[in-house]
């Protein structure tokens, strides 16, 4: 009887996911399969044919440029993940846990999102007049007589890429963590205090474990976006930092479809591994 009702309900609601499935199939599954397929095509200077070959794969793994880009991508991803976490977690702790009023914590979260009111490119390019040799930071430091020579490593280095990415992606770390922290029952923290635990113990044994699902979600957001990045590196590194994303852009620009596909497949696999690893840390199904 109840089984029949559930069955009828399922039939009635199943169509809700049809548009999603159609969309994802057409614009995600099929393109990914196409990329895998194209990566085995034969590339000549001005042409590409569907004759299967491993040439592009061999070229990727034998070239220092491509392998170097892979390691740079992974290095920058790990550094940005660390910086967004180090800056983001205390911010989230303040917004989600220490601000008692729900209204104020919502306002603070909205403030975090204000940079997103302008376009991505402007946000990235705005770092140039900040970090440049004659940029704001150098001018201020020189006026204060802290330095006598402008700091040149600020712009067009890996450092500038990391600074830019941290600023852009930090909010994706703050949001999920603040959300999880906001859901912690304040009585639980009081109970821990009542049992004699100081703030350090309460943080490490209660608050941090309970916020972990937020950390994982935030880390997945940041990872997916940083691993696929090319614009920040393009605008702030002076072409010195090549990420897998930049390789794809260059290859597509010179119509090297097979090589672009190989890089795309490798990037997708790396992202898949990263997401799977994060999901192993915590059972999101149970927590959310």
């Amino acid at each position, binding site marked *: 009887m109840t089984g029949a009702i559930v069955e009828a309900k399922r039939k009635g609601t199943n169509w809700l996911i049809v548009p999603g499935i159609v969309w994802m199939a057409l614009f995600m599954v099929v393109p990914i399969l196409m990329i895998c397929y194209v990566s085995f095509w034969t590339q000549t200077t001005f042409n590409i044919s569907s004759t299967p070959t491993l040439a592009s794969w061999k070229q990727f793994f034998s070239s220092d440029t491509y392998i170097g880009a892979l390691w740079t991508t992974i290095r920058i991803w790990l550094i940005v993940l660390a910086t967004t976490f180090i800056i983001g977690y205390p911010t989230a702790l303040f917004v989600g846990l220490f601000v008692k009023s729900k209204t104020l914590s919502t306002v603070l979260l909205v403030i975090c999102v204000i940079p997103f009111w302008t376009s991505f490119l402007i946000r990235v390019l705005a770092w140039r007049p900040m970090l440049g040799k004659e940029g704001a930071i150098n001018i201020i430091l020189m006026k204060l007589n802290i330095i006598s020579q402008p700091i040149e490593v600020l712009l067009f280095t890996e450092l500038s890429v990391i600074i830019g990415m941290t600023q852009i992606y930090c909010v994706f770390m703050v949001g999920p963590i603040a959300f999880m922290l906001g859901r912690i029952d304040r009585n639980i923290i*009081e*109970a821990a205090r*009542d*049992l004699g*635990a100081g703030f350090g113990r309460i943080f490490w044994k209660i608050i941090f474990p*309970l916020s972990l699902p937020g950390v994982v979600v935030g880390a997945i957001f940041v990872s997916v976006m940083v691993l696929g990045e090319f614009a920040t590196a393009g605008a702030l590194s002076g072409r010195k930092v090549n990420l897998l994303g930049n390789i794809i852009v260059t290859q597509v620009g010179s119509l090297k479809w097979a090589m672009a596909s190989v890089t795309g497949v490798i990037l997708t696999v790396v992202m898949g591994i990263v997401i799977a690893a994060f999901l192993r840390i915590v059972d999101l199904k149970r927590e959310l």
Partner: protein
Amino acid sequence: MATETAIFEIDGVSKSYGGVNALDGVTLRAGVNEYMSLLGPSGSGKTTLLRVIAGFEVPDSGRVYFEGRDITSLPANERGIGFVFQNFALFPHLTVRKNVAFGMMHGNTRVSPSEIDARTQSVIDMVGLTGMEDRGVEQISGGQRQRVALARTLVMQPKLVLLDEPLGALDANLRGRMRNELRAIRERMGVTFLHVTGSETEALAMGDSVVVLDRGRIIQAGTPDGVYSTPASPAVAHFLNRFNMFDGNLSQGVFTGPFGAVAVTHATQAKDDVYAIRYDRVQVQPLGAVTSGPALKATYIASEYLGSSVMNYFETADGKLCEVEHHLSLGAPETYEPRQQYLLTWAADQAIVFGKEGKL
């Protein structure tokens, strides 16, 4: 100041939130090994009082003493006072055993691992959770969570345990059982319980002493029997929820109410003139019967079977609801005709009268 017999004492504690007085000069003390219930309606400040004692709130004025020591500005984690939350506030990511052991593992007193294990196990056995040690606290029932909350607090061997409506989240059947267990556990441990509740039956049944709180002030304190039989004010009588209360006018030893003018031998000083008669002290007579005490015409509406007694509901001419309780131990209940008028009567000396005139 605090004497040796008092485990805790609060002296003139006030606390207000945004201009509203949650606590207004509360002074209270409890002895060693005592079960004190704190009764009050919601918003009476009873939870605030508990939170001040536990150290979660700092009072605006007044002092708090525990074991003779002024702890007003001592942080909660250094007070050693147990607190059992209404929603239990268990650590959701830990097992039953880890919840219970939390205070010993992460608290400010060093306890050896073997002692942690032994004490955890013995308190888990005491509250009847043997075999549940490795379950997550989300996987156990409400009653079991209540026991974990209690075990987690008791394992710290506090001298004073504060319970904030600890039975409020349980169903009626479990509530009855936990009442008995709470009393038994307390007696075995020899600690003082301060039990906050909004339920008058719970307060009367459980406390060695009962404190009634209203709008941030203590309006009566005494034994359950004393509070029950001689409420100090109409407000207390009202919270006890055991009295038919009539407004009227007390003048020169005569109370004039809906039942006419009745001579009063004794009245308690109060702001308003109120005549209160307990539900189970009212008799129902047919209309026209000769009565010795005051009598009031009322229409029978309905009755409610309560197991050990029957509650009959009557409506007076001016629309006031009167309740008459008949204990089944006194014999089978009478049956009354709905919408028929009866005469409610009682012995005049069993009424409790409050009045501006006060004692006569």
